C-alpha cells in the first residue's frame, strides 16, 4: 500500500505540472483583461500602465515560468519562514492582480469560512443521506423510498440559486427567523454568539446539504440494493442474526465501500467552495474568490486556486483509492 501511495504521488507530479500548464494557457487565452472592470473614465494609457505593472504584457512562457517559480520556491520559503522561523530570502510571492496582495494570504484567510460552511453542509448532507439511503433501499418502492426519490430529484434538479433564494424569501423575508447575509467577521465567543453563528449557517448549510444528500443517498441506496441481494445476506439471516444486524452490519459495511470513495472524491469540492450558494448567501469563501477572480481577469489567483483544486483532486483520488483498499480487504495495492 505504501509503495502504491508513493508511486501514485510521484506520478502526480508531472500530471499536476501538465494540468497547471494547461490551466494557465486556457486562462490566459480566454479573452479577459484585468483592467476590463475598471470604469471607462480611466483612460487607455493609464490602463496600459496598469497592465504593464501587472506584468500582463510579458510573453506567456515567461509569465508561466514566473508563476511556477513563485509557487514552487517563493511560497514554500515564505511559509517555512512563517511556520518554522527560518530565515530564507523570499522572492516575490504570487500576487493577485486584483488586490495586489499575495494570493495565498487571501486563500488562507478564506479557507476557514469555506471549510466551516461547506464542510458542515457536506457532513450534514452525508449524515442525512445515510439513513435515507439505508431505509430507501431496505424498503424499496415504499412510500419512504418514493419520498426519498422525490427529495433526491429536487436536490439534483433544483439549483441552489433557486432553492437558496426561496429559502431566503421564506425564512428571512417572510418569517424573519434567519439572516439572509452571512457575516464572515462574526466570531463565536459565548453561547449567544454561537446561536448567531448557528442561525446564519442554517440556510447555506441546508441548501448545500440538499445536494449532497440527494447524491449520496441515491448512491448508497443503489449500493445497498446491490448488496441486499448478495448471498452473504442470506447467510447472515440463516445464522439467525437480527434484521438490524444483517442490514446495519453486514450489508451497510459492504455498501459503504463505494460510497466512502465517492464521499472522499467529493471532499476537494469542499475546498473549492460552493460558488453559487456562496454568492446567494454572501458567504465569501473560496468559490466566491474564484468567480470574482475569473470575472476580474485575475490570472494569478485563478491559476493558483485551480491548481490547488487540482492538487486536492489528485490527492483525494489517491485517498479514495487507499480507503477502498482499507475498506475492502479483497483489494490490495502494491
Amino acid at each position, binding site marked *: 500500500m505504501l509503495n502504491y501511495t508513493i508511486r501514485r504521488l510521484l506520478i502526480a507530479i508531472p500530471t499536476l505540472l501538465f494540468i497547471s500548464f494547461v490551466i494557465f494557457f486556457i486562462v490566459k487565452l480566454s*479573452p*479577459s*483583461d484585468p*483592467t*476590463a*472592470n*475598471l*470604469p*471607462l*473614465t*480611466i*483612460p*487607455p*494609457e*493609464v*490602463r*496600459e*500602465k*496598469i*497592465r*504593464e*505593472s*501587472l506584468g500582463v504584457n510579458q510573453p506567456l512562457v515567461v509569465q508561466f515560468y514566473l508563476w511556477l517559480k513563485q509557487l514552487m520556491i517563493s511560497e514554500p520559503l515564505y511559509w517555512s519562514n512563517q511556520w518554522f522561523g527560518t530565515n530564507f530570502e523570499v522572492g*516575490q510571492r504570487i*500576487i*493577485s492582480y*486584483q*488586490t*495586489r*496582495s*499575495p494570493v495565498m*494570504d*487571501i486563500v488562507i*484567510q*478564506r479557507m476557514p469560512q469555506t471549510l466551516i460552511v461547506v464542510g458542515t453542509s457536506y457532513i450534514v448532507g452525508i449524515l442525512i443521506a445515510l439513513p435515507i439511503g439505508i431505509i430507501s433501499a431496505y424498503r424499496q418502492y415504499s412510500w419512504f423510498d418514493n419520498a426519498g426519490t422525490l427529495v433526491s430529484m429536487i436536490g439534483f434538479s433544483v439549483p441552489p440559486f433557486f432553492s437558496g433564494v426561496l429559502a*431566503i424569501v421564506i425564512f*428571512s*423575508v417572510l418569517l*424573519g427567523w434567519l*439572516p*439572509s*447575509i452571512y*457575516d*464572515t*467577521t462574526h466570531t463565536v465567543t459565548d453561547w449567544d454568539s454561537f446561536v448567531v453563528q448557528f442561525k446564519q449557517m442554517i440556510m447555506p448549510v441546508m441548501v448545500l446539504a440538499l445536494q449532497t444528500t440527494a447524491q449520496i443517498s441515491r448512491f448508497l441506496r443503489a449500493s445497498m440494493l446491490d448488496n441486499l441481494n448478495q448471498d452473504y445476506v442470506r447467510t447472515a439471516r440463516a445464522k439467525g442474526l437480527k434484521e438490524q444486524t444483517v442490514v446495519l452490519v453486514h450489508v451497510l459495511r459492504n455498501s459503504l465501500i463505494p460510497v466512502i470513495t465517492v464521499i472522499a472524491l467529493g471532499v476537494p469540492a469542499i475546498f473549492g467552495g460552493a460558488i453559487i450558494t*456562496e*454568492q*446567494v*448567501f*454572501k458567504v*465569501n469563501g473560496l468559490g*466566491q*474568490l474564484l468567480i*470574482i477572480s475569473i*470575472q*476580474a*481577469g485575475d490570472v494569478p489567483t485563478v491559476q493558483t486556486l485551480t491548481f490547488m483544486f487540482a492538487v486536492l483532486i489528485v490527492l483525494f483520488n489517491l485517498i479514495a483509492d487507499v480507503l477502498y483498499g482499507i475498506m475492502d480487504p479483497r483489494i490490495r495495492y502494491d
Partner: protein
Amino acid sequence: MKNLKLLLATTAAAAIATTSALADGHEGERGRDGEVKIIYWQAPSTLNPYLSGGTKEVESASLVLESLARFDNTGAIQPWLAESIPTVENGGVAADLTSITWKLKEGVTWSDGTPLTANDAIFTWKYCTDPNGGCAQASYFDGVENMEALDDRTLKISFSAPKPFPYTALVGSESPIIQAAQFADCLGAKAPECTEANFGPIGTGPFTVAEFKPNDVIRFTANENFREAGKPAFASVLFKGGGDAAGAARSVLETGEFDYAWNLQIDPTVLKAMEDKGNGTVVTAFGTSVERLHLNQTDPDPALGDARSTTAKAHPFLTDPNVGKAMSMAIDRALLVEVGYGAGGQVTCNVLPAPEAYASTANDDCKVQDIEGAKKVLEDAGYKDTNGDGIRETPDGMPLKVLYQTSTNAVRQDTQALIKQWWTEIGIETELRNIDASVFFGGDPASPDTFQKFYADIEMYTNNFAGVDPEAYMANWQCKEIPGPDTQWQGSNIQRFCSEEYDALSKKMSETAGLEERAKLAKAMNDMLMQSYSIIPLIHRGGVSAHANSLGGVLISDWDTELWNIQDWYRKK
C-alpha cells in the same frame, strides 16, 4: 468668474443645509449611534484607490482617505482638507492658469495622530506618477509639472500648460491624499508589496480600517482623531461585499439587516415592490452617465480586412445625419426608462446631461417618439423601400441593415429588442448581438469583440466622466482620438466622429477659464455631436441605492462617492 462664484455660493448654501440638518437634534458624542451596516454587492478588493480604480474600491476607501476638495450632491465643489477653494479671484489660481495653491485646514491630523502636511500631498503625487506603479488614477495628475510645499500647510501645484480647470489633482474621491510615512517604501514596482498599507491605509477621514478582508468585508471604526467634534455618529461601519444586487436590496428593504445598499441595478418593478415593504427608501443620484448608441461612422464590412472600422472607408449610410435622426426619433425613451431603469434613469437627449450649467436644451425634441416623422425623414432623404421587402434601401440600392451590439446584460438586451422593433417599423433591419462585458470592455487588441474595435454598425453602452468638468470628456471626440490599428485600437472616439470645427471648439475650451464661457463651449460641442447623430443618447442613468428609513443624513451624490458625507450620517431615534 461670476459663475464660479455662483458655484461657490451654492456650496456655502449646501454647507449651511448640512449644518442645519445637524442642528436637528442629532448632535452628540462621537460614536453614539453604534454600528452602521453597508452592503456593496461588488466587494472592494483593496483600499488603495490608486491601485484599483474601481468604484467599489474608491467608495470604500473614501471613508478613510480624503482629498483637498470634494463635490457635494449637487456637483458643487467643497473645500475638504483645504481651507477654501482657490480661484483666480482669491489669488489661489495664478492668472496665467499655470499653478494653483492650496492651503490645508489647520489642525488636521492622520488617524495615527501625526499632522497632515503638504508633503503628504506631494508624496501622493509622486506615488501615483511613478512610471512603474501602474497607478489607476494617473490621469488626475495629467499636466502637473511640479508640486511644492510652500510651508507645512501650503501646497503649490504647477502645471506644464495653462489649466483652466485646475481642480483635478488631489480633488475628489478618486485622488485622495495618502500618508507619506505609511507608503514611503511603496513607490513604483514595490507598490503591491505593501499589502498592509494597501489594505489598511491611514487616513484623515471619519473612519479607520479595523479589519479588511479583500473581496469580502471591511470593518471600520470611528477615527478618534477626526477633526470634527461629535462626528461621525457611528462608532463602526460594517462594509459587506459580495452577492448580487437583488440580495443587497432585499437586505435593506425587506429584511432590514443592512442600512445601506449600493448600486441596485435590478428590475425596477421588483425594486419598487421591495421598497413598498416600508423598511427603507430607494434613492437615486444622477451624474453624467448616459446610456447611448454609437453609430459607426466608418465601414465595419468584414470584407475590408484590416481596414475594417477604420477611417479608411466611411460608413455607407450612418454618416448621413438623416438616418441617425430617424433612428433617434423612432425610439420611445420613456418606455426604455420604464422597462429597464425605473428610478435609476431619465430620458435624455444629450450626451452631456449634467451638471445643470452644461446641459443643453437644444435637442429636447427627441424626448417624444415619432415613428411617422422618422419615416418621413428617411423618405425625404431618399431612403425608400424599392423592392418591397419592408427594408429601405439607400439611393444606391444598399439595404439599411445594421448590426447592433452591446454587452451581455438583461436590461441592455431588453432595450436592444425594443429598439430593433421600432427600427423595423421605420424600415431598418437590425441584427442584435451581445458580448460578455469582460470581453467587450476588455480592450484586448487581439479580440475582435471589443467596443473599441467596433466591428458593428451600432453599439450601446454607458459612459460618463468623473468630477464635474466636461473638458476632458468632450475632448474624447476629437479626430485624433479615433481608435485604429496604428494605436493598438486605443482611443476614445469610439464612433469615429471627425470634425475640424469640433476639434477647434475642444482646443478653445482647453484654453478658456471662465465657467460660463466653458459651459457655452461644452453645450456647443454637445449639440454638434447630437446633430451629427453619430451618438444617440438614450437614458441619463443615475446611481440607485437604498437606505434604511432609520438611517439619517444620507445625501446621495454621483459627483463624488455616495458615502461622501458619511460623517454626517446618524441613526434616527
